[in-house]
């Protein structure tokens, strides 16, 4: 049981976020079936409440400045294993939580747009359960907890696709399930290996970031662990060869399922890359990034080409998702603040844009029960509002400046360019390919003349229900496009902090892991030079990075420099090292005190009293 541990917040906002959707599930459980209005009302109220709580969390997070995790809740969970129930958000995860809680009510709204799914109660229960699992992924700060939420996403999604999906739903659902599970299980083994390697024997993310055992992993050991984690994330994102589950799952999922699948689930993978791979295994990143970046670029371009060849609108949008997630991966692999900020921003924006795309495709499908491009022509004449909504979303997806697709992409390009020119080149061409298939789709479906005899002539435009579902997304597209600091103000500090653990400086060291030299207390009367002599790298705990380079010269210098104003008149130097250097300097500056002074052995441990008494006698 989560006993009362240390809760770093006044109110458990994050636990509330997790519990609210589950309360919705329980409330739905007690309702009689076939009461669609009642079910819908319950689900909407719960999801809107969850959104409000996440807004509160947004403002609480903003109230405490700084880059670290906020609203942290820390309870005992499995004490014997070092696994705790630790929740917390920083800028990155908070934005993703907001995305989830924002998309959920809209997805639920869209289910009532034209045709309510059968077995509506169970559908909504699964959606709400999915919401808990998704939020949990983004807010857990304990690796086992993260894994549990990660895998818990599988069950609701499996049933959502398998029961309410399209024609090949069983196949797609099973493919989705098994694909994701294979990758995830290797990540589980890597998590265990991390525990065994760590000095603190804990699964706590913040502990592991600064754990000496984890920091002392060699580059090749990190390579393996990075790979295991990356495999799980690569399947989710998805990165090129592991993407084959996505078109099937997206196409065969019901609309609300697709919105969440494309809008949020894919971001789990890139979030994981940013949150775990980069900071925990920084030396492995440059080893893996050429390969992964190549795959990302292939994904961008190849998926765009395949999207161009599609005849099913939803499948085309699914492939466009693969293509756009490639950009995000590229931004992350650039391992610099601007690339990562751009990637995170793009995660949010892509979620909004793709959510809107799938929603609109769903509206179209509800009317004609077909998604074939060839079936549609000239829709703009019969459904002008719908066409405008699609127009805006399309351009947001392509990355037109002014809409939300642009800032994120641009920052990704900047980041990629800082890393490698080739990446930037390919990434930018990906934008062009994206424009090609999207604009061509628009032309085929919306433009042209409506054939008066076809079914297209009698389509009705967006209903008010549908409008309430799509308009918030469009508003956000414009707002975030024009004023992205709304998000980046939160993201930037967290990304900077993350990069401190991820970026290697010119010596190949991770800045956050270089121990800061401790300034010892020199005591009364210690001159600044003495403090400098004694607080040099000699007092620094040994790191395995260039140990001799910095440490040795200073020690030698202090020992052999006869001009060091040694505190011979100060007997009370308390540090262990000081007496040694003092003793050495003593023996250097005062030659004939006692020929066989024991000062020649620089042992700091018994030295304090010895050094002090010796200096005392010498000084006198």
């Amino acid at each position, binding site marked *: *049981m*989560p006993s009362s541990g240390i809760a770093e917040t006044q109110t458990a906002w994050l636990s509330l976020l997790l519990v609210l959707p589950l309360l919705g599930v329980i409330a739905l459980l007690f309702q009689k079936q076939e009461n669609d209005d009642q079910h819908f009302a319950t689900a909407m109220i719960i999801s809107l409440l969850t959104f409000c709580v996440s807004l509160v969390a947004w403002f609480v997070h903003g109230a405490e400045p700084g880059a670290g995790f906020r609203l942290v809740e820390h309870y*005992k*969970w*499995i*004490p*014997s*294993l070092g696994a705790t129930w630790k929740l917390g958000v920083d800028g990155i995860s908070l934005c993703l939580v907001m995305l989830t809680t924002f998309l959920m009510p809209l997805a639920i709204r869209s289910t009532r747009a034209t045709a309510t799914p059968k077995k509506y109660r169970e559908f909504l229960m699964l959606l709400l359960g999915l919401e808990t699992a998704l939020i949990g992924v983004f807010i857990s700060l304990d690796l*086992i907890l993260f*894994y*549990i*939420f990660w*895998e*818990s996403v*599988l*069950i609701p999604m499996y*049933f959502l696709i*398998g*029961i309410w999906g399209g024609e090949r*739903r*069983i196949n797609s659902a*099973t493919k989705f*399930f*098994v694909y994701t*599970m*294979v990758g995830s*299980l*290797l990540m*589980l*083994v890597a998590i*265990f*290996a991390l*525990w*065994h390697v760590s000095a603190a024997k804990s699964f706590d993310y913040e502990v592991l970031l600064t754990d000496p055992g984890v920091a002392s992993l060699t580059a090749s050991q990190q390579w393996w662990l990075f790979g295991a984690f990356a495999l799980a994330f690569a399947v989710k994102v998805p990165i090129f060869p592991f993407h084959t589950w996505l078109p099937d799952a997206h196409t065969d999922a019901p609309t609300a399922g697709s919105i969440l699948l494309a809008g949020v689930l894919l971001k789990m993978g890139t979030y994981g890359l940013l949150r775990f791979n980069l900071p925990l295994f920084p030396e492995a990143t440059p080893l893996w990034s050429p390969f992964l970046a190549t795959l990302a670029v292939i994904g961008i371009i190849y998926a765009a080409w395949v999207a161009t060849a599609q005849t099913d609108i939803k499948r085309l949008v699914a492939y466009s998702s693969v293509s756009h997630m490639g950009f995000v991966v590229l931004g992350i692999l650039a391992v610099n603040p601007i690339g990562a900020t751009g990637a995170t921003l793009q995660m949010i924006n892509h979620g909004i844009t793709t959510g809107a795309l799938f929603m609109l495709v769903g509206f179209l499908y509800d009317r004609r029960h077909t998604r074939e491009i060839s079936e549609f022509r000239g829709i703009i004449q019969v459904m002008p509002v719908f066409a405008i909504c699609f127009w805006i979303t399309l351009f947001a997806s392509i990355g037109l400046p002014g809409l939300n697709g642009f800032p994120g992409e641009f920052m990704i390009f900047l980041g990629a360019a800082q890393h490698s020119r080739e990446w930037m080149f390919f990434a930018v061409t990906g934008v062009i390919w994206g424009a090609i298939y999207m604009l061509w789709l628009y032309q085929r479906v919306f433009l042209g003349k409506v054939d008066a005899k076809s079914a297209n002539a009698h389509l009705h435009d967006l209903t008010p229900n549908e409008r309430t579902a799509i308009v918030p997304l469009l508003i956000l597209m414009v707002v975030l496009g024009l004023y992205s600091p709304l998000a980046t103000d939160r993201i930037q500090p967290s990304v900077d902090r993350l990069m401190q653990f991820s970026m290697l400086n010119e010596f190949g060291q991770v800045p956050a892991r270089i121990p800061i030299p401790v300034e010892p207390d020199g005591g009364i009367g210690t001159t600044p030079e003495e403090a400098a002599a004694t607080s040099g790298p000699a007092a620094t705990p040994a790191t395995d990075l260039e140990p001799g380079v910095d440490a040795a010269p200073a020690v030698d210098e202090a020992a052999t420099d006869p001009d060091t104003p040694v505190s011979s008149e100060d007997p009370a130097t308390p540090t262990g090292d000081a007496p040694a250097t003092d003793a050495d300097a003593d023996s250097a500056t005062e030659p004939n005190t006692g020929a066989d002074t024991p000062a020649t052995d620089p042992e700091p441990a018994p030295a304090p009293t010895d050094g002090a008494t010796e200096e005392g006698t010498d000084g006198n």
Partner: protein
Amino acid sequence: MATNPMSPAQWTDMVDSLRYIVPELMLAFGAVAVLAIEALAGPGTRKRLEPLVAWLTVFVAFVTNILLHLGLRAGDVHYVAFDGMLAIDATTGILRAVILGTLLIGYGFTWKKQIWTAVRSEYYALSLISAMGAIIMCEATHLLVLVMGLELLSLPLYTFAALRKDKSQSREAALKYFVLGSLASAILIFGMALLYGAVGSVQYDQLFQARIDRNMYGVGAIFVLVGLLFKGGLLPFYVWSPDVYEGAPDSQVGLMAALAKVGAFGALMKLAGPFFTAMPHVLPALLIVVAASTMFAGNLMALAQTNIKRLLAYSSVAHAGYLLLGILAMGSLKTLGLAQSAILFYMATYLVTIVASFGLIAWLQGDDGKWELKDLAGSGQRHPTWAVTLTILLFSLAGIPPLAGFFGKAYIFHAAVGAGYGSLAIFGVLTSVMSVFYYLRVIVAIWFEPETKQLHLADMLPGRLAAQIVIAWLILLGLFPAVVYDPAWEASLTNGEPRYFPEASFFPDAQVQQAVDAVFLPVVRGVPVQLEKPAP
């Protein structure tokens, strides 16, 4: 062994120490009571009293066990009878609680009035005795007592398989089980004799080194292992499982599977210390092969099954493989505590899951043992509660969070990674994914396929209650595994220094790889494997 008669003080000691095995004694008395009721009471009274007496016995034993262990702290070991033939400590307490709890759940599922008219008393009496045998196997620190426990466990199980007297399949299953099981027991007893020859004693704490003859020790230990591996259903001694599970009456199979597994692995847990210490090179190598092949073959063969009982039987085999991976991890001192608590946790979740799964199948009215997957199609529509329960059980068996089965497997892999068996853990994880395929196939049949056969459920209130308890337990442990894991961890610490784990004898982990190489490479290249050479 002294041939002097025991002194009064020793007698008092022995009688006094019997209080630690009161739960087992209660089970024995309960069995006798059930048989007495059958012999003496009238037909109506019999029908009502026997289940009640059996259930009450187990319940009181369960409570007694808990009270007993509240008084013990981790590390307290209490020996009973003749200078330590049974060891009662916190681990045993947990295993006892698990066995008795499983028995209670099993009784809930078998509360079917019509079938038990003829064989009710036999069933209850035998199940009580079988559970007692399983508990004794878990407590034994003397090979003779282990054998006694094994027989007490097995003979009733052979009979269970035969309880559907009207079906030839049942008799065939029973005969197969009996013949093969007796063979395995005989091999185990022979191994025990060899160990006696090699060491001069069959007390576990004497078995830590082969004082007299190392080769004979090796052979003896392997024979003992064979007997236990048979009971646990591991490769290559698993062949009886699918046939026996399919042939035995539906409501029995769960309990049979559960008790056999817990008995076998409980004994293996206690024997791990001596055997790994005395055979640090050969034993890990052998067990790696057995574990890997069991995990792989069990899952592989389950993929091909269409009969739900055979599918669950093969999945049982696979789960035994995971448990053996835990036993392997017990061979390393670094992960001894981790591995032991992992196995205990696994037992606490797996046993009730398997009893409940077979129990749910048993509710289907119709031809016992012939349930194909296509018969289950569409049952999600007709019997949603039953279907949801079975789905949760299958997801737990597959190891999907947030259910308890995930943590069971996770802890075992965690211990295996720490013991140096990282590649085996990865292998196990991949076979776990294989298992998802066939569990999903059942779930697809239940939920996604149209109905082919109208199924009727013959469930009763105790069964439904038992099912709900199991589901609640799995969800509880999935969210708060510390409820079982922490006590198991406390029980597995070696700080309390149970007498039969002398620390100095364990080898460091780095030698495992050398040991494995030392055995595998010669085998691969055709050089005969040499057991331990006597130290010069």
